């Protein structure tokens, strides 16, 4: 028996005797996530974080103080009863834990992996506050993943109510669409999901890489929907193949949920952005993930740049994904160029750690002025400016200010622009009467209802840039509203 197991056994004894005190809980070391070796994983696509062992999970769960007011729940966009499921794990009752989670969240294996817990549930955790270090909070996300992965094998299919005769169209098979499909189908409505790509899953398959979210997990969620009787039609571009109006007036759909994502990459608007070797993060990741460009010539037909020195522009999760993908595709040097300091980076702390472990070089407080090309139009370098931080801006983060005359060049052959997305214009161009704001995002009320009768929307096309969990949260709200609308 190793030391950890010994510790756990003693704690269990105390727990059973009802003698486990806060002091004991504070003394349990925060459990690190087992991960693939930093050097080894530079050359494979396998998942990096390997998941807690049973002993680790139970120890980590015992760190939870079981606060009466459960502040963690306040930090969760879908208000999972976090304290209760953590207590269940601490007591060795994993099945109960997963059923508590599934009451609010349909995709725990996904959220446990990709939610930014440190700015959600874990930010509010009393343990983290006690140690004045949010990284010492109870690792709620890892615990969620642990029970979700255990439950995966015998995944039971949610029950479906008797047919209502009503039909709902869901546009986009990303996290929001999946949640709406499940909730609306459960109420007995016929559900069809329309997906523009040839594979379902939205950002979870084209954007988030395999090494962070294995595609098999997404596929399992899709399979559950299919078993529930949800119809899935790929290669169908709503707005072009059929318009929303046609779906509702000619094809017999009683309600529509628009969850098409953001999907229009922003560029820097600097000189040289049209050079060969400049990618949007969307393009780079889609080629690498969905189109499997890492197997180009070995079964996959979509090419991607063979790079030596790569600059990734941006500081969010998508920038980290791009940088870490470039590492895996064989680049010798990958620079993450960000105009603020590391503290202001919107990426999850864990992604930043992982990127550094894999050798991504962080170039903070600098930003490109122009991208340099050769006669053939290929990227050969990038001219950057150094920055310093000034007064806080509207976002509360300190504003980066360029230092005049600080130009310098870096040697790169590939540049990946990961500075966010604008709103895709396709639905706007083809849906008269649907109200949009000045940025092209769909305007909705608190129930995710749009200006058109029977049409609901959520996720990035409403929020701008959001997260998987926020899209799911909106999906839940929209589904409830759709069910009410159809019953009314």
């Amino acid at each position, binding site marked *: 028996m190793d030391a950890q197991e010994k510790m756990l056994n003693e704690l269990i004894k105390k727990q059973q005797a009802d003698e486990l005190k806060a002091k004991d809980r504070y003394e349990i070391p925060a459990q690190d996530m087992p991960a693939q070796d930093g050097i080894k994983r530079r050359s494979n696509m396998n998942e990096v974080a390997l998941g807690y062992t049973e002993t680790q999970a139970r120890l980590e769960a015992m760190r939870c103080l079981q606060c009466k007011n459960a502040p963690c729940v306040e930090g969760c966009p879908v208000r999972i009863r976090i304290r209760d499921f953590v207590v269940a794990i601490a007591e060795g009752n994993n099945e109960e834990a997963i059923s508590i989670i599934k009451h609010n969240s349909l995709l725990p294996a996904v959220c446990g992996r990709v939610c930014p817990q440190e700015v959600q549930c874990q930010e509010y955790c009393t343990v983290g506050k006690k140690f004045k270090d949010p990284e010492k909070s109870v690792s709620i996300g890892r615990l969620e993943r642990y029970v979700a992965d255990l439950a995966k094998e015998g995944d039971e299919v949610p029950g479906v109510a008797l047919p209502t005769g009503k039909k709902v169209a869901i546009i986009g098979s990303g996290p929001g669409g999946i949640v709406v499909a499940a909730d609306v189908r459960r109420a007995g409505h016929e559900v069809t999901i329309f997906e523009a*790509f040839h594979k379902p899953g939205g950002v979870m398959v084209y954007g988030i890489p395999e090494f962070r979210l294995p595609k098999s997990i997404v596929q399992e969620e899709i399979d559950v929907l299919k078993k529930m009787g949800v119809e899935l039609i790929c290669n169908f571009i709503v707005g072009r193949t059929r318009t929303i109006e046609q779906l509702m007036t000619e094809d017999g759909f009683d309600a529509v949920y628009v969850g098409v994502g953001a999907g229009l990459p922003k560029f820097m608007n600097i000189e040289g952005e*049209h050079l060969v070797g400049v990618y949007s993060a969307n393009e780079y990741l889609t080629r690498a993930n969905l189109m499997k460009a890492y197997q180009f010539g070995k079964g996959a037909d979509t090419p991607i740049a063979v790079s030596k020195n790569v600059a990734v522009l941006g500081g969010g999760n998508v920038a980290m994904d791009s940088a870490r993908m470039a590492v895996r595709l064989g680049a010798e040097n990958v620079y993450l160029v960000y105009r603020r300091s590391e503290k202001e980076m919107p990426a999850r702390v864990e992604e930043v750690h992982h990127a550094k472990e894999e050798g991504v070089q962080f170039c903070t407080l600098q930003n490109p002025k122009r991208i340099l090309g050769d006669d053939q139009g290929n990227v050969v370098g990038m001219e950057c400016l150094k920055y310093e931080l000034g007064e806080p801006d509207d976002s509360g983060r300190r504003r980066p200010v360029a230092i005049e005359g600080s130009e310098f060049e870096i040697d790169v052959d590939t540049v990946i622009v990961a500075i966010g997305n604008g709103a895709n214009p*396709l639905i706007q161009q083809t849906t008269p009467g649907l109200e949009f704001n000045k940025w092209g995002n769909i305007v909705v009320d608190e129930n995710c209802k749009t200006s058109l009768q029977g049409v609901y929307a959520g996720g990035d096309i409403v929020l701008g840039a959001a997260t998987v969990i926020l899209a799911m949260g909106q999906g839940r709200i929209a589904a409830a509203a759709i069910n009410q609308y159809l019953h009314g």
Partner: protein
Amino acid sequence: MSFKILSKKQLSENVFQLDVEAPLVARSRKAGQFVIVSVDEDAGERIPLTIAGADPQKGSIRLIFQRVGKATAQMADLHEADALGYIAGPLGQPTHIQKFGSVVCVGGGIGNAPLLPIATALKEADNQIISILGARNQELLILEDEFKKISDELIVVTDDGSYGRKALVTEPLKEICSRDSKPDCAITIGPAVMMKFCCETTKGFNVPTQVSLNTIMVDGTGMCGGCRVEVGGQTKFVCVDGPEFDGHQVNFEQMMKRMSAYKALEQKALEKYRDHKCKIGLK
């Protein structure tokens, strides 16, 4: 959906025509729009191809493509009753069709295929159609008969003079623009370099000229930005803002460089495919 090939025809050495089952696309497509096609659902490349025609009753669309890389070579090796991996579309903004008066339609090589439905729609909108079709030689000229049917005037040129007039398309284009009643507008579809010179020609005569661009794409719905071109100094996405643009505003030099981004990699993939075919005894 099956995307079954209903008929296949070889139009020239490297140009093929497929009529493929795609009822939803056939029903909603308009002139000027394109589809994304892939031979293999799991690992195939997504190729943008302009829709050359459609039969909504039969539920089929016509695709005309040139064998260039591995993906198109593989597609050319398919037979009737085989199926494509998938077809997604229609995509892009339809051509703006109205009565302009007289319209010069300039097609080069494979560009005649996407040009045909546009010229047909323009004819149906009561325009006078002057067509100029170009090819390197007689063997490579496609769709002449179809253009004959809808053109008020048809000029055929070949680079080597093996058929029609020995000239580049810009020569008759210049003559037509010099006529007393110069054309009201022009549309040109073909190799980038041909479109570039056509636009330079018409610019001198102030004849508004549309071009239809076929840049490298992945999704075709605005998501990747790989298809971006500079038009009038601004970044535009061919898939959602186009595929048609004011040719006088397009930065062709830059576009041509971007279009050759994967040439070396594609060449390798094609060689490997041919080699593989030899080994397994295909012709």
